[in-house]
Structure formats: structure tokens, C-alpha cells
């Protein structure tokens, strides 16, 4: 039993937590406010997923690999947008690099975007139609099934 635990610990210790992709990480994050998000969504020519996150947020860490995978699969059909709220910019950049979140991110220190679109806490994921209107809001950590279902709804 002890031997099995030791082997398990060694295997787990070998698991990488370094950057998951070779994507370029931005040097700085552009800031955004309440009106900015509407302009951004109106300019997009396709549905969008807007994920509000923070580097200090534990559930955000858990859902980040899922969002990275979803972006890789749907990037041609859906625009993924990350909004880092109430965060330290350097830590936010580290978070983006760590999980290979290879889509556009913005910095929103004062939570202007969630205040504009609705929803409390972090994370929040907004599903936005091609017309720029929010069709669904998911508060809290999102699981694969829900994300896949909502993406099917947006692209179907």
C-alpha cells in the first residue's frame, strides 16, 4: 500500500503545471469597461463566449483547461473573450500563460463588465448570440457538458 502511494506521488509530482501551449502571451492586457464590452460584442461577426475570471479564483483555475480546449475546437465559429476582474495584471498574465488561454483577454479591475452584463461572483460565463445579445449566463464554474451544450446551442 505504501509503495503504491509512493509511486502515485512520484507520478503526480511529474505532472507538468507549466504553460500548456506554445501560444504567445501578451505583455499587457487592454482594459475594458461596460460600454467597451458592448462595442466588442457588436463588432464580432459570430457568437461569443465571454468568461469572467481572476487568477486568485480557484474555480477559474479548474475551468480554464476546459475553456482552452473549447477555444481550440470552436475558434472558427465562436469568439472567446476573457475578462480578468479584480486582479493583479502580472498574475493575470501568468494565469493566461499557465493554461494556454489562447484568445483575447481584457483587464477589468472594477468589475465593470459583470456590472453591465449581470451576474455576481467569479467565474461567470456569458453566451452571446451573433447579434451581440446575451442569450445565457452561467454563474460559477462551468462543466464540460454545460459548455458543450451551450456551444451547440450557439452554433446549431
Amino acid at each position, binding site marked *: 500500500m505504501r509503495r503504491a502511494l509512493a509511486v502515485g506521488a512520484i507520478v503526480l509530482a511529474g505532472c507538468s503545471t507549466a504553460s*500548456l501551449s506554445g501560444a504567445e502571451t501578451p505583455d499587457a492586457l487592454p482594459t475594458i469597461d461596460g460600454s467597451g464590452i458592448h462595442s466588442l460584442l457588436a463588432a464580432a461577426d459570430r457568437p461569443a463566449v465571454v468568461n469572467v475570471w481572476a487568477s486568485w479564483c*480557484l*474555480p477559474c483555475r*479548474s*475551468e480554464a483547461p476546459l475553456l482552452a480546449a473549447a477555444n481550440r475546437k470552436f475558434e472558427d465559429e465562436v469568439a472567446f473573450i476573457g475578462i480578468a476582474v479584480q486582479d493583479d495584471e502580472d498574475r493575470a498574465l501568468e494565469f493566461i500563460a499557465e493554461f494556454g488561454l489562447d484568445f483575447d483577454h481584457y483587464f477589468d479591475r472594477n468589475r465593470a463588465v459583470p456590472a453591465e452584463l449581470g451576474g455576481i461572483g467569479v467565474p461567470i460565463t456569458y453566451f452571446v448570440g451573433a447579434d451581440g445579445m446575451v442569450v445565457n449566463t452561467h454563474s460559477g464554474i462551468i462543466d464540460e457538458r454545460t459548455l458543450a451544450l451551450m*456551444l451547440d446551442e450557439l452554433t*446549431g
Partner: protein
Amino acid sequence: MEFTLLASALTGVAMMWGVLRITNHAADFDRLVGVAAVGLVSGRLVAMVAAGVNPLVHPIDVLVVRGGVDTVGAAAGALAFLAWSVRGNRVRLDDLAPAAVAGMAGWHGGCVWRNACLGAAGEVPWGWALSGSSTVRHPVELYAAGLMALGAIALVRLPVGWGVRATLAVALVAGARLITEPLRPSLGGGTGWWYAGAMAAALVAAGYLTVRHMRMGPTTSSSTA
């Protein structure tokens, strides 16, 4: 705290408890809850590792079940713990099998508490649409729950020799997931091959055990109804 997820889990536990009572194996309730817990943790650990998150560096992430639980990892962990917990007493696996399948049915049926029953789009009269949408979808988790509930009933009533009921339970759960998997939108390639493999292996094992039982004479499980 994710209360709707908890409600789904409690639905599964309640159904498991009910079947254990019916089959006179209520004393095994703790064991099966332990199996479910070990399955959950092992599935979560596998999901974390697969996503590149080191459980040793971020141990608290294990608690964020919503972040993903790997089905194969969970099943392997649960089966391993179950086999370990009943070691040296092969008949007991058969006794627990109907309750375990009923628990799975309850977990899937618990989708109603968290509004997570829907799968692929399909114009079926019993389907419904997501809030704010007009696209009717299959209630795929209820399909799986129904199949597993029927399977649990069949297992309770099945007078078979030792080992057969347990292996058939694995085949039933894997089969129910395999049949319904195409109706579940997924970001990855899905786990259909794993379900097919598990079902095939379980059916082969059940066939082998049945033949062996017929040759060696009756050694029926104690919970035969």
C-alpha cells in the same frame, strides 16, 4: 457549495439505499458510499492530471468537482475500491450490484435538480428547450437514468450464480452510457470506445461465469429474489 450537484448525488444515494433495503443488504450502505466517494476522487484526480493541473501543487482543486471528473478514472477507482473492500467474498459483489446500478440511475435522474438533462437537438414530443431557446432537445440523462433503473430491477430479479450479476451490472451501466453517448454534446472525442470495451469485457465475463456456474452446479447469490 454546489447545492444542485449535491441534490443529484443525494438522489443517487437515496435510490441506492432503497435497493439495498429491498435486497436486505442495508448494512453495506457505508461500503457503497465509500465506493462512490473513491470513484469521485479518483475521477477528479485523473481529470486534473489530464488537464495539466498538478494535484500536489493544487490539492484543493480536487474539491472542485464541477471542474471535471474523468468517467474512466472514476469507474476504475470505484471498481478497484469495491473489489478491495469485498476481497475474499465473491458473492457480495453480486449483492451490491443492483444497488450500485440504482445509484447510478439516481445520479443521472438527478439532472432535473440542476437543469442538466438535455443533450442533442431532436424534435421529440417529450423533449424540451433550454431557457430562452426554441431548440427542442433530447432529455438524454433521463434516458440513461431510465435504462439503468430498468437494469437495476432486472438485476434484482435475476436468479444467477456468483459473479454474473456483478459483471452484468458493469455491462448494463456501460451499455446505457454507450447508447446515450451520441446524444451528449462533447468537447472531446467522447468516451464511447471505453464504454463499448467495458460492456464487451463484462458480457464476456458474465458468459464465462454463467457457463462455469452451469457446469459446477448452483451457487446462487444470496440476494436472489
